[in-house]
């Protein structure tokens, strides 16, 4: 371990702060029965605490320190100008319970963001409330359920999820009380139309479509898939986590997708991972606007020549209710708004083009060395197989761990499940050709090592503060308390 735990650094009696003698009368202690004899907190000086946490912070790996090709997570650069705008006092010190007249600037920003997200996706309404992607999914599926119920159509309890969808989709549907049926992909990685046909009946509530899917492929039959679901009376949910490939090129609403969540923390450059929180706005088609969670920002008084329009909060008439306190993660809305202002419509299209170009460049450098199970031009990401028949003991996990020795964050591995030993790589548009080449060189070198010295991969990582962790033990022994072993707890 590179850094000891606080309890191991503790020295009895050491303290960081000396309190002055009290200049007020002491009150009595609570009754003895409420007091503990000991409080096992680490005893350290302030300097030692600062050094401990500073050292830990230096072990962090982030998009600001290195390349992070984590598939389907869109780990793009988070521009620092976003951090400037979100700290403007008018935004930073606004309170969500202030009278709307006093926060018109913040409301205009939210309103404009709603309008732009409608335009980008081709939707009639938007809620900014959901706290992250899967929360957006839950919101969207609850809207689909509410829509069917409002029409008295109570037997629609089935939701179809292709096996190339994001892993959160089945959990979302199950949480919404719907029955999940998995749909197979065909040999080209599209939704299998025959399998879909068999499930298109009057119990169909909807289909959750990730497009491009987790293979990084745009469904070649997407319009037919959507038509079949609509014909059976179902609605189509779009998982917008992969919107980075589509910005300014395809509007999901134009394809017929009824509901879609965006990930502001992927596509629109707000922090992702430990730097969060996330934000998962949901866009809907015209017939679902009344079901959106509220409140939503709208113009509540058009004003006149003398008075500017007044922005306020409105509740859609058949709203499924709130899904988050206040207005969602407002700070993320400011960052995403900034990103949209900085790029403009043309810039957004270039983002998608460069993301797809970068992925295909990287794919072209790796495809002769790593097996590409679905051999097509990819969108913003692609999935390779992390194994070779001639070295059966080397797995995707070993390749991922070895990449850490080359100072790269590993790609997503073992997902999607339809590719054995999957390595899902998403370069994003914010990386230079030099970075992509350095990564490709490392991947090629690792492939060579796998054949000449497989043990090097099996034992990786070698150059990190913590070596190969015991994943079985980590999954089975959930002991997270400092200085407490599994034995002590029993």
């Amino acid at each position: 371990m590179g850094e000891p735990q606080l309890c191991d650094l503790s020295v009895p009696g050491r303290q960081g702060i000396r309190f002055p003698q009290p200049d007020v009368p002491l009150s009595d202690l609570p009754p003895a029965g409420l007091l503990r004899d000991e409080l096992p907190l680490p005893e350290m000086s302030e300097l030692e605490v600062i050094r401990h946490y500073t050292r830990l912070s230096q072990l962090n790996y982030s998009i600001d320190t290195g390349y992070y090709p984590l598939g389907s997570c869109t780990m793009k650069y988070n521009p620092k100008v976003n951090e400037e705008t979100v700290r403007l006092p008018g935004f930073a010190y606004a309170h969500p319970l202030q009278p709307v007249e006093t926060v018109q600037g913040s409301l205009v920003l939210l309103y404009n963001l709603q309008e732009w997200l409608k335009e980008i996706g081709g939707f009639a309404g938007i809620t900014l409330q959901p706290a992250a992607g899967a929360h957006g999914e839950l919101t969207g599926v609850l809207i689909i359920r509410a829509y069917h119920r409002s029409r008295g159509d109570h037997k629609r309890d089935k939701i179809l999820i292709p096996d190339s969808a994001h892993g959160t989709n089945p959990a979302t549907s199950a949480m919404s009380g719907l029955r999940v049926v998995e749909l197979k992909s065909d040999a080209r990685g599209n939704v299998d139309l025959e399998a879909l046909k068999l499930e298109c009946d009057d119990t169909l509530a909807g289909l959750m479509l990730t497009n491009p899917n987790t293979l990084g492929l745009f469904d070649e039959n997407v319009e037919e898939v959507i038509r079949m679901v609509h014909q059976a009376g179902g609605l189509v949910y779009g998982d917008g986590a992969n919107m980075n490939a589509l910005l300014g090129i395809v509007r999901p609403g134009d394809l017929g997708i009824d509901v879609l969540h965006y990930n502001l923390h992927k596509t629109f450059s707000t922090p992702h991972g430990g730097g969060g929180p996330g934000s998962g706005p949901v866009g809907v088609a015209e017939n679902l606007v009344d079901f959106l969670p509220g409140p939503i920002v709208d113009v509540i008084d058009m004003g006149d020549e003398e008075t500017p329009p007044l922005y306020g909060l409105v509740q859609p008439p058949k709203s499924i209710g709130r899904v988050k306190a206040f207005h969602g993660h407002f700070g993320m809305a400011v960052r995403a708004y900034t990103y949209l202002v900085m790029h403009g419509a043309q810039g957004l299209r270039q983002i998608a083009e460069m993301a797809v170009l970068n992925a295909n460049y990287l794919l072209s450098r790796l495809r002769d060395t790593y097996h590409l199970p679905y051999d097509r031009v990819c969108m913003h990401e692609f999935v390779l197989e992390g194994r070779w028949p001639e070295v059966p003991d080397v797995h995707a996990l070993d390749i991922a761990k070895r990449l850490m020795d080359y100072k790269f964050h590993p790609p997503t591995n073992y997902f999607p499940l339809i590719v054995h030993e999957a390595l899902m790589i998403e370069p994003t548009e914010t990386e230079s050709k030099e970075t992509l080449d350095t990564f490709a060189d490392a991947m090629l070198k690792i492939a060579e090592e796998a054949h000449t010295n497989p043990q090097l991969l099996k034992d990786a990582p070698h150059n990190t503060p913590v070596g190969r962790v015991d994943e079985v033990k980590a999954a089975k022994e959930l002991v997270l308390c400092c200085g407490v072993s599994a034995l002590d707890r029993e």
Partner: protein
Amino acid sequence: MSNIPANLKFAESNEWILVEGSTGTVGISDYAQNQLSDIVFAEIVVAEGDEIKQGDTIATIESVKAAADVYSPVSGKIVAINEDLGAAPEVINSSPYEAAWIIKIELSDPAELKPLMDAVAYGAHVESQG
């Protein structure tokens, strides 16, 4: 190479069934456990006495790599579940065909066994999966 006992029938989704009289014992294949790698959690989601249909989920298994549902290859009434599995899910790795049986089921429609694969066909199926 996967271990594929000759006396079992297999479903495409990698469950095995051992049929004795009108009762079937169900588990997951050696190939399936090997694909999942180290299994850290198993929960049987049906109970003794349940009437289930072919394709219903009978258990959820999690490994360090993935979570997977286990489906019943046949319809019928569950007559026993393996109570020991939850406490020691790792036996699915070490003994997929014996200690790690999941349910015993009274078959309601023996004709459902027909389309299941025998050991030879399953061997070819596994081979094609790579």
